[in-house]
């Protein structure tokens, strides 16, 4: 078995198109997860008990099921059952979005609970409604605090997105497998795929670290990203 680098070079544009698909899946999933996460965290911390219970069962559902099971469950199961014509790409994005939403809800919930109650009280004492206090005082602070944990979540979801190949979404993994199965150049191709994931992880985390430093509250010395 010889080592043919020309296969890698020839298929690189094809693989990079796949990484564009991966990037779209991950960005959309993280955005969906952000909305779900924030709304759910607010509901779990400030909502009435039945709402909080309902939301935490959502979290347990997505935390307890493997992503692969969820993917099949939604794509072959639920979407077909409901007669929805959803593309593989959309299905992966939705399932990853809902999954990371559950994890992000827990991140934001933790940040909210770690914030001292005083500022919320002060906001209410000034006559702000609960919604205003959450939106203007709580969220701006807990979102800042959550960036390090959020970037961790990004790196996990990015790599979970490789599972999309099993339902045929045209992302990095699917395309690598497609080329490898035809050229038998598994070793160089999967190293290349791995490196593409590595670079995407690194770039995303670096970007979030920059954002974290940019929006940091002056005078606070804590640094969630370590060194």
């Amino acid at each position, binding site marked *: 078995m010889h080592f043919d680098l020309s296969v890698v070079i020839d298929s690189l544009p094809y693989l990079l198109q796949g990484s564009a698909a991966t990037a779209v899946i991950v960005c959309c999933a993280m955005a969906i997860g952000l909305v779900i996460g924030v709304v759910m965290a607010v509901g779990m911390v400030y909502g009435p008990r039945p709402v909080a219970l309902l939301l935490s069962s959502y979290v347990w559902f997505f935390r307890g099921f493997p992503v692969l099971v969820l993917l099949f469950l939604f794509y072959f199961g639920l979407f077909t059952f409901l007669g929805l014509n959803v593309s593989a790409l959309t299905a992966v994005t939705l399932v990853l979005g809902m999954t990371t939403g559950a994890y992000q809800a827990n991140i934001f919930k933790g940040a909210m609970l770690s914030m001292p109650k005083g*500022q919320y009280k002060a*906001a209410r*004492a000034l*006559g*702000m409604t609960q919604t205003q206090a959450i939106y203007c005082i709580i969220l*701006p602070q807990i979102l800042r605090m959550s960036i390090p944990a959020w970037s961790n979540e990004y790196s996990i979801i990015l790599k979970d997105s490789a599972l999309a190949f099993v339902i045929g979404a045209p992302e990095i993994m699917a395309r690598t497998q497609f080329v490898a199965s035809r050229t038998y150049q598994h070793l160089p191709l999967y190293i290349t795929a791995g490196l593409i994931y590595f670079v995407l992880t690194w770039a995303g985390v670096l970007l979030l670290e920059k954002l974290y430093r940019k929006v940091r*509250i002056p005078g606070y010395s804590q640094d969630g990203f370590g060194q």
Partner: protein
Amino acid sequence: MSNALSILRISNLKKSYGKNTILHGATLSLHQGEIIVLIGPSGGGKSTLLQCINCLAMPEEGEIFLHDNRVDLQSAGELNELRQKVGMIFQDFNLFDHLTAVDNITVALRKVKKMSKKDALCRARRELDQVGLSDKASLYPAQLSGGQKQRVAIARALAMDPEVLLLDEPTSALDPELVGEVISVIKQLAGNGMTMIMATHQMSLISTLADRILFMENGSIVEQGTPQELLSSDMVSKTRGFCERLNEISPEDL
């Protein structure tokens, strides 16, 4: 203490946490410009009483009247209105950490009073000027000293044009050398005729500002009267005993 003049009146406020009753039916009436000082041992219910007056802690029983109009404690709208008219200063300042000193003041002006950005900024600067912090407007809370934080908190409360100010041990969390600047701001407020209810152990505030002293113990108001009545040497009162012990701790304050 006629009701006709009362700006704020509370009647039989009760509050408990679980099986612990913290407040056993507090009743009190406050008229324009009056300054009431709450004293008593910690755990006596002073903070709870203050927080029940603006319903940050919701009382289980009792009534609150603002200008003789009963406040409907079930109505979120009426509560927000009550809270705008009854400002609050906290022991640990509770500034909004992510906002500069000036934005700590503008945020409520814009969201609650719906002021324009420009008007809110103008008002906030004026209030900062009043507490002597115009040069700190663009600093964040973490960049301010304790005394400066409390002065920003006072400016923030005053910007809402409250009719009554509740102060919950405003100097207790401060280093001794920073207490003075906050005391002088509070005295300035008193000089401007602000109506206040203040929990404090600062003898210089008690003896110079109080129109009336309420002594609270185990969730009840057990004594009340003017400082002259309660602190005079021929009177045997819990208040006097308590203040004497305070003086032993920091005699230079009197």
